[in-house]
C-alpha cells in the first residue's frame, strides 16, 4: 500500500527493494525536489547576502521600509505585520501536520477540516504578501535620485521625522506634458513622469527652513547620515536629477535599487510557491472529500503535499530572518 506505484510480486527490484530507505517512491521524489528547490532558494538568499555585503554601508534599513499595517494608517509599526504573516504560515503548517496525523488514523472528517484550515491560512498569507507588495510599490514619502543613482530622503530637522516630498514641494502649473504616442513621436514612449520635478522640490525646500536631507550612507552606529541645512541644499541643487516615488525594478525611494529587486524576486518566488501549494492543497482537499484516499486505504498523498507545504514554511523562516530581521 502507500502509493499508486506498486508491484504485485515480492521480489526485489533493486537492492533497496520497493521502498529504498524505507520511504515510498512518492515521498522520496518529494524529498529530491525539496533539496533541489532549497538550493534554488539559497541561491537567491545568498546573492541577496552578496549585495548586502557589497553595499554594506548604504543598504536600506528594513525596519524603516516595512512599517505599515493594514487599517492602521499613518502609524509606524515595524515588524508587526511580517510577524503576523509568519505566525499565519506557521499555524497553517500546524494544521497541515494535524491533517497528516488524522490521515494516519484514517479519519476522513478531520483530514477534511484541517486541510480546509490549511488552505485558508495559505490564502491569508498570499493576500498579505500582495498587500505588502502594493504598499512597497506605492511608497510613502518619496525621494530624490542623484546623478550617481543614490537616493536623498527628506527629514524635518526639529522632529527628525521623515517628510513626504508632496508636503513641501511647489507644484508649478507649467510642468511638462507626458510624451505619449498620440501627442509625440508615434513609435516612442517615455516612462510616466514623476509627480514633481527637482526644481519644484528645490523651490519647496528653500521655502521651508526646517527640511534637511538624509543620504543613504550609514554612520558607524548603523543610522542614515543626516546632512546640515547648507549641505542639504547644496547636494540637492548639484546632484538631484529626478523625484522617485515608490519602487520598481529600476529605482526605488528606499535606497539601493537592488534592494527592491531582491524584494520582488525573493518574496515573489516564495509567494509563487505558496500559491502553487494552495492549488495542490485544493486538489488534494477535493480528493479527500470524494473519498479517493479512503478507497486507496492510505492518505499518503496528504503527507506528500504536506511535505511541500512545510518546506514553503521553512523557506519563509529564512526569508523572514534575512530580509526583515538581519
Amino acid at each position: 500500500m502507500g502509493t499508486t506505484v506498486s508491484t504485485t510480486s515480492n521480489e526485489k527490484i533493486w537492492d533497496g527493494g520497493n521502498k529504498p530507505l524505507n520511504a515510498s517512491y512518492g515521498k522520496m521524489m518529494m524529498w529530491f525536489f525539496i533539496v533541489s528547490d532549497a538550493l534554488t532558494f539559497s541561491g537567491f538568499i545568498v546573492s541577496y547576502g552578496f549585495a548586502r555585503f557589497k553595499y554594506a554601508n548604504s543598504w536600506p534599513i528594513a525596519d524603516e521600509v516595512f512599517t505599515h499595517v493594514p487599517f492602521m494608517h499613518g502609524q509606524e509599526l515595524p515588524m508587526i505585520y511580517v510577524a503576523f504573516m509568519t505566525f499565519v504560515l506557521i499555524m497553517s503548517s500546524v494544521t497541515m501536520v494535524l491533517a497528516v496525523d488524522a490521515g494516519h488514523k484514517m479519519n476522513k472528517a478531520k483530514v477534511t477540516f484541517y486541510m480546509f484550515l490549511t488552505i485558508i491560512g495559505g490564502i491569508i498569507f498570499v493576500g498579505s504578501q500582495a498587500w505588502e507588495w502594493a504598499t512597497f510599490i506605492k511608497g510613502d514619502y518619496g525621494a530624490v535620485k542623484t546623478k550617481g543613482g543614490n537616493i536623498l530622503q527628506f527629514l524635518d530637522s526639529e522632529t527628525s521625522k521623515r517628510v513626504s516630498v508632496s508636503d513641501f514641494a511647489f507644484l508649478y502649473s507649467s510642468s511638462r506634458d507626458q510624451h505619449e504616442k498620440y501627442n509625440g513621436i508615434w513609435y516612442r514612449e517615455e516612462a510616466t513622469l514623476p509627480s514633481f520635478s527637482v526644481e519644484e522640490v528645490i523651490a519647496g525646500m528653500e521655502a521651508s527652513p526646517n527640511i534637511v536631507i538624509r543620504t543613504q550612507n550609514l554612520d558607524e552606529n548603523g543610522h542614515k547620515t543626516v546632512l546640515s541645512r547648507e549641505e542639504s541644499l547644496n547636494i540637492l541643487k548639484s546632484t538631484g536629477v529626478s523625484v522617485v516615488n515608490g519602487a520598481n525594478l529600476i529605482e526605488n525611494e528606499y535606497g539601493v535599487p537592488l534592494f527592491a529587486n531582491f524584494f520582488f524576486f525573493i518574496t515573489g518566488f516564495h509567494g509563487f510557491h505558496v500559491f502553487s501549494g494552495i492549488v495542490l492543497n485544493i486538489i488534494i482537499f477535493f480528493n479527500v472529500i470524494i473519498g479517493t484516499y479512503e478507497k486507496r486505504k492510505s492518505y499518503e498523498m496528504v503527507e506528500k503535499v504536506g511535505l511541500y507545504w512545510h518546506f514553503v514554511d521553512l523557506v519563509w523562516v529564512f526569508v523572514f530572518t534575512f530580509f526583515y530581521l538581519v
Partner: protein
Amino acid sequence: MAEHAHKLEIFRGLIKFKSNTQKIIGVLILLSIVTLIEVVLGIYKPAALNESFLNLKLLNWVFIILTIVKAYYITWDFMHMRDETSVLRRVVVWTSVFLILYLTFILIQEGGYIFDEFYDTSNYIKTDF
C-alpha cells in the same frame, strides 16, 4: 498503525509527549516563542548585541541561530524527519548543508571584497558623484 509509529520526544528526551498531536502543539508553542523572541529583538535591537563577531553583529548571529533552531524543528517534527531512517536524513541534510555553506562562503567573501574595492578611496571607482 504500527508503521506510523512516531518518536515522541524532543530536546533529546527531556520532554516526552503522550501522542503525536500533543507533540505538534508542543512544537508549535516552541516555534511561536522563538518567533516572538526574534520579533522583540528586531524591534528593540538591544545595544549589548551591537558588537561585531566574524564581521557580523552579535544580534545577527542570534537571529541566524534562532532561524536554524526553527528550521530544525520544522524539518524534524512537521516534515517527520525524526521518523525517517538515518540514511535518508543524512542524504537530505548533509547534501543541502554542505552545498549551501559552500555557496554562502564564496558569495559573501566576494561581496566583502567588492565592498573593499568600492570604498577604497585610493582607486578610481566612484559610487557617489
